[in-house]
């Protein structure tokens, strides 16, 4: 197992991505999946860094990378009591998370109007404006990013096994991909 802890600074998220991809490659994860590992780990770490900066900037973010039973697993754990992008209720899996996101993933199908959850979310108070072909532009938050939870929804699309759980300290995002020990 490889374990990495880093201070919650945005600059360190890139380092975390590089480490994750290096360990994934060493574990025999297919080259075609490494971009997904890079993006998913980056999203999880970005979310954790934002949570720490908001709630516990002195605490490090922890990443554990393991390769067991033909699976390469990455667990990103934060220590924030109420990180962004996670519903207040305990969650058992990513389906609940994805369904709980009133966000762009549901807001952008062609022809959909700028009403309902898409226009109400985001916290910026701005109404969604129409994009090309009348598609509403997703709301952005006060920092100019997409609304909270978007990163988790991206992770759900990238890793084929994702578990998001609330630990005594904070939120844990576990994601895994198939690995092939014979290719090491």
């Amino acid at each position, binding site marked *: 197992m490889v374990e990495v802890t880093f201070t919650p600074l945005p600059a360190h998220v*890139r380092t975390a991505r590089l480490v994750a991809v290096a360990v994934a490659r060493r574990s025999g994860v297919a080259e075609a999946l490494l971009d997904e590992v890079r993006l998913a780990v*980056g999203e999880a770490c970005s979310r954790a860094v934002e949570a720490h900066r908001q709630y516990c900037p002195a605490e490090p973010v922890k990443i554990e990378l393991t390769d067991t039973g033909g699976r390469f697993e990455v667990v990103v754990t934060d220590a924030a009591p109420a990180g962004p992008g996670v519903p207040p209720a305990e969650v058992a899996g990513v389906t609940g998370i994805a369904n709980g996101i009133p966000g762009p993933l549901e807001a952008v199908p062609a022809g959909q109007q700028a009403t309902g959850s898409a226009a109400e979310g985001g916290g910026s108070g701005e109404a969604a404006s129409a994009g090309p072909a009348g598609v509403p532009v997703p709301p952005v938050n006060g920092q100019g*990013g997409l609304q909270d939870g978007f990163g988790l929804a991206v992770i759900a699309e990238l890793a084929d096994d994702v578990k998001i759980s609330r630990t005594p300290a904070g939120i844990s995002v576990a994601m895994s991909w198939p690995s092939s020990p014979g290719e090491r």
Partner: protein
Amino acid sequence: MDLKLDDHMKDGIRVVDVEGEIDVYTAPRLRELLIDLVNKGDYQLVVNMEKVEFLDSTGLGVLVGGLKRVRAHDGSLDLVCRQERILKIFRITGLTKVFGIHDTVEEAIKARKSEK
């Protein structure tokens, strides 16, 4: 790799060339540039992402924010990208329906001009 930003006018449209990685660390610089351009009156933007090596949801948020700003002035923000690894994140988030995404800067400008 860090983020490199440059911009120039081409056929009356402001082209922003982006090179490197757009993530939670570097995205604020792109956001500042887009805000600066809009504040200076550039409402027709093309963001050339051909040399972007990494893009995450923070970067997507900055692009969406830029689109909202130019649209407030009846402007446009088109993207140039042919890289599958970058296009994938637009596809899985559904943002291919929000942005006009083109193969080249010339095509992006041509498409924008034809809509006028």
